[in-house]
């Protein structure tokens, strides 16, 4: 759906060059919910705004639905934008129009005949559950309701792609969940590709199929959400994962553990389970099989898009040779193992 190649964006402010995107390449598949996460200033908004050319790339190529969007002429770009919906952190609804008028706005722009536009607007209001609020003005709505209007508006012209720039960042956790659920619903209902950016790993966890981590204007990691949660490959990704599953251990624990007396050794490991293996008694069979001691220091289980995802921090102690075998055994059973210290 989207194919970004070597995208670079440099802002020039008062003769100073700011590189917001540095040689970014990324592919978003049709029908998936793709998340981009990064810290403030990493370049997320710039990236998503390049995709509908609200920001003009300095270099690189962006293919949307098989067409190079960066070289479009004005009228081509306008037509293309009608098929790319966008929702915003601060909703950006017109205060001069009612909910109904706001949703009908993109249809007016697309010159849809009035009767048809009215019908479509009613349909959209129904979809987002705001039929009762049709005559209300945006200022009379809650944040969640405003974002629903934003979503209805973005979907008006049956886009193939929806861009979301921190659409839930101004909402409370519960409202965030309901908006994310709505996004997931429309994703499966219309096979709509969604590209969303966020700085909240919970959002990634709740709705995304795949995720890219952007840091300092560069993509540092791309992968299935589950894999990134199980084995984050970069320090930024790891710290994001930790915000959700709280793997941070007290440093005393990391230092105090590992009392080697020559023959036996202790290691601190982090074990991640995905899917079915989260339900299997892998740990207990390892203990039996290798005759080592395992001390559970921390554990939790969560769901990522309905797939169980478990996370354990263990202190394993036993003869060093056996410990290696035991860990290999866990790996062979499909678990992600990470050694936190090894004294």
């Amino acid at each position, binding site marked *: 759906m989207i194919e970004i190649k070597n995208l670079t964006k440099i802002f020039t402010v008062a003769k100073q060059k700011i590189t917001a995107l540095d040689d970014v390449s990324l592919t978003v598949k049709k029908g998936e919910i793709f998340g981009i996460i990064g810290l403030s200033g990493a370049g997320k908004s710039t990236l998503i705004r390049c995709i509908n050319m609200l920001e003009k790339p300095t270099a690189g190529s962006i293919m949307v639905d098989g067409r190079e969007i960066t070289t479009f002429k004005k009228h081509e770009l306008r037509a293309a*934008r009608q098929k790319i919906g966008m929702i915003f952190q601060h909703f*950006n609804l017109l205060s001069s*129009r009612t909910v109904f008028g706001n949703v009908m706005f993109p249809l007016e722009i697309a010159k849809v005949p009035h009767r048809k536009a009215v019908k479509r607007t009613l349909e959209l209001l129904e979809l987002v559950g705001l039929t009762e609020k049709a005559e209300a003005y945006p200022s009379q709505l809650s944040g969640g309701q405003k974002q629903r209007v934003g979503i209805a*508006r973005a979907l008006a012209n049956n886009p193939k792609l929806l861009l979301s720039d921190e659409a839930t960042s101004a909402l409370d956790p519960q409202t965030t969940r309901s908006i994310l659920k709505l996004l997931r619903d429309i994703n499966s209902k219309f096979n709509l590709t969604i590209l969303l950016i966020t700085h909240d790993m919970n959002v990634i966890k709740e709705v995304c199929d795949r995720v890219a981590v952007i840091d300092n204007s560069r993509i540092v990691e791309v992968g299935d959400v589950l894999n990134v949660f199980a084995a984050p490959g970069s320090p930024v990704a790891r710290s994001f994962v930790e915000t959700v599953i709280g793997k941070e251990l007290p440093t005393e624990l990391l230092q105090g553990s590992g009392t080697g007396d020559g023959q036996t050794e202790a290691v601190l490991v982090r074990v991640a389970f995905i899917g079915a293996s989260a339900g299997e008694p892998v740990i207990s069979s390892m203990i039996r099989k290798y005759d080592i001691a395992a001390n559970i220091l921390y554990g939790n289980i969560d769901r990522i898009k309905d797939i169980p995802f478990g996370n354990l921090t263990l202190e394993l102690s036993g003869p060093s040779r056996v410990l290696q075998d035991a860990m290999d055994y866990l790996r062979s059973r499909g678990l992600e193992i990470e050694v936190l210290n090894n004294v």
Partner: protein
Amino acid sequence: MFDAWLVERLLLATWETVYMVVLSTVFSYLLGLPLGVILVVTSPGHIMENKPINRVLGWIINAVRSIPFIIFLILIIPITRLLVGTYIGTVASIVPLTLAAIPFVARLVETSLKEIEWGLIEAALSMGAGTWSIITKVMLPEAKPSLILGVAITAISLVGYSAMAGIVGGGGLGTLAYYYGYQRYDNSIMWPTVIVLIILVQGVQMLGDNLAQRINKKRG
């Protein structure tokens, strides 16, 4: 003090002033509104960024605005004559009043339109809206309350300017006050004139405030 003659003169002059102010307000918006819009959309980073146009327009507007009205009035007598055949009287006054108000209106409109949150324009752009749609469906409707207050300010200023025009034979309350009040030093007409002016200005302001408030209230 309020004899029939005075009342009649006062009514006529008031009518002339209202006539001048209303027409010159309308005419000045006919040109000032588009100019204000152009000032905004051609400004850096806006939807039709164009440095030369923006600069030149800004410069002309500032130049006209820096001429005191009383001088401007005399300066454009040839234009007034060309347009209405004479430079004396109520109709003729509308020309300098309008021309002087245009740059003023353009700046007022510019200020109103610049208050609009950029996010709204960006949202419209993201939907594929063109320049015309953005101006007519986003910028002007969003700025409506503020634009209405601008109209009130313009009309009030024009009440003042029209009095000045009255001194050089423009008619209306200005001529009345000048002719009887200043040249003949007849105070009996000065005070009623001032009172009518105060009522006019207050009325226009109240009307503007009311309209703007009504819209804001509806929008919540």
